[in-house]
């Protein structure tokens, strides 16, 4: 197998004595679409916090190596914006878009490019960027709402906009936290198709609760089950679903 683009080894994170992440090992390979499931409190969001620099692990290492055979980058020493600039984008559980800005502006602010103060002061949109924005607006189906204030969008549309913002920054790795939350079945399905179409070009980790959605997006990929801060098991959706330990902790039916 190829070299992992993102790896976490023996990572532990404790909050006030509570082990949110416990000796976690996780490997993401280039182009993969990985789904992470787990009961509430399994450490999914903390895991994303550790990967994106929001929190620092107590022990263990997190490394990022987008280019094979070059030294990996230690992510535990970097902060949020430095990690984002390396090409790791994150979508939050509750959609976080700029409510007072238009859909279009939301995407402009997310577009890949220099991030410095002076670059922003003298920023101009060139035609290549405008084409890219048009393509993104079509991709996330917000073309006809580009002048809407993002705060006026439906919950599902906000989720899509945030995915669009993520893609605008052209990341290598996408960390997507519960993208289908608050969506209709049809929107959920379309989101799944979008994520499947992005796999390959991007390496993607999706945290999700909705099992039919997990089944849809894990059709070619692996499912990782988190429990009490470590990996309980990993494998194909059907294998994971029928795994006795998973049924016990996650589906809660094992005891019966």
């Amino acid at each position: 197998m190829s070299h992992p683009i993102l790896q976490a080894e023996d990572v532990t994170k404790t909050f006030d004595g509570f082990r949110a992440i416990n000796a976690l090992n996780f490997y993401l390979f280039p182009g993969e679409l990985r789904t992470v499931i787990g009961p509430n409190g399994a450490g999914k969001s903390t895991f994303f916090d550790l990967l994106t620099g929001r929190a620092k692990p107590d022990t263990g290492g997190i490394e990022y190596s987008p280019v094979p055979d070059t030294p990996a980058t230690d992510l535990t020493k970097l902060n949020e914006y430095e990690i984002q600039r390396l090409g790791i984008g994150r979508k939050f559980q509750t959609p976080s878009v700029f409510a007072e800005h238009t859909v279009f502006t939301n995407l402009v602010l997310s577009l890949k490019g220099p991030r410095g103060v002076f670059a922003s002061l003298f920023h101009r949109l060139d035609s290549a960027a405008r084409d890219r924005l048009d393509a993104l607006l079509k991709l996330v189906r917000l073309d006809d709402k580009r002048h809407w204030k993002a705060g006026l969008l439906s919950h599902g549309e906000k989720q899509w906009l945030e995915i669009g913002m993520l893609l605008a920054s052209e990341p290598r790795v996408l960390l997507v936290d519960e993208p289908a939350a608050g969506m209709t079945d049809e929107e959920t399905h379309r989101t799944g198709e979008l994520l499947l179409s992005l796999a390959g070009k991007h390496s993607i980790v999706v945290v999700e609760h909705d099992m039919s959605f997990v089944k849809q997006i894990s059709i070619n990929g692996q499912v990782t089950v988190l429990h009490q801060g470590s990996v309980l098991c990993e494998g194909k959706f059907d294998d994971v679903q029928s795994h006795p330990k998973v049924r016990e902790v996650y589906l809660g039916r094992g005891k019966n």
Partner: protein
Amino acid sequence: MSVPAKLSDVEPRFFTRAQWASFLLPTLVLALVLPLLNAALPAEHLLRPSDFTLNLYGKYATYAVLALGVDLLWGYLGILSLGQALFFALGGYAFGMHLLLMIGKDGQYKSDLPDYMVFLGYKALPAHWEPFYSFSFAAAAVLIVPALIAFVFGWLAFRSRIKGVYLSILTQALTYAAALLFFRNDFGFGGNNGFTDFKRVLGADLNSPDTRRGLYVASVLLLAGVFLLYRWLTRAKFGHLMQAIRDGENRVLFSGYATARYKLFVFVLVAAITGVAGALYVPQVGIINPSEMTPEKSLEAVVWVAVGGRGTLLGPILGALFVNALKSWATRAAPELWLYIIGGLFIVVVLFLPGGLISLPAKFRSFWVKLRSKAPAAESLAAGH
């Protein structure tokens, strides 16, 4: 069907023609017509703005610059600084040092030393005062001293990600600490009396109408220039980013922007500009003392912005003019009531007019539309009977 991307959405034109007109017209009136009328017309002429009026307007213009800074931080960037008057006062002190030295031997004690130094028994001018004989050095200090304080404070606070009410309290503590320091005689800046009794600036007599007119024009031009600069900052991408930091700093951070640097940049820039306003304020009122940096002064500036309308650039200017005109009137008519008036005003605005004075026309318009849509209905009802 594809909707053409509107450039104006992200990169609005700096000003439309109408906006240029509504900017240039009052600027011309204030910076050119009023001073000309003041200079040319005989003293008792009805149309002549008095020296006192011009002086008052000049003072208000420097207040408006202070208010614009508060608004850029609060209304656009989401940082409620309760210590902006500190930078105003620091600029005032830096320029006041120069003005004090320019008194020369014309002070009460006919000494080369400023009066308060003679009074406190200084034998020689402290070394750090020497360079303030130079106007350019003092002018540079007006910019640099507030900027430096803002940089050190902002660097520590924004890097540590101190936000919201905690940051507001810290800014207030900063200005309070500075006021306590400046109140002390042994700090070396004249204690609670501060600096006063200025005689001249750049060789011109500060009491002559010409000089005062010049200071007034300089204040109006500063206000106009700062308005244009802030207008430029708040449009296009930088302006969008400021508001994005205000509305959701997390997302901005996770979009790859070092938000602390953006905040620091605006905070330091505003401090320097506020310092210039303070420097123009001091020769016009003739005094600078530590009461200018007490927390109340900064809070007043916040009230101006709230009353005028935060998150707009015209609102703070209107607010500074309106509240200070009200203050000028109230402190003569009913001085003991002033604090109640300003407190009540703040409450009324927060409760009933969150958009400030600037939102009044739109409110009246929608009220008018409602009224007119009701009126024909009533008429047809009457006709039916």
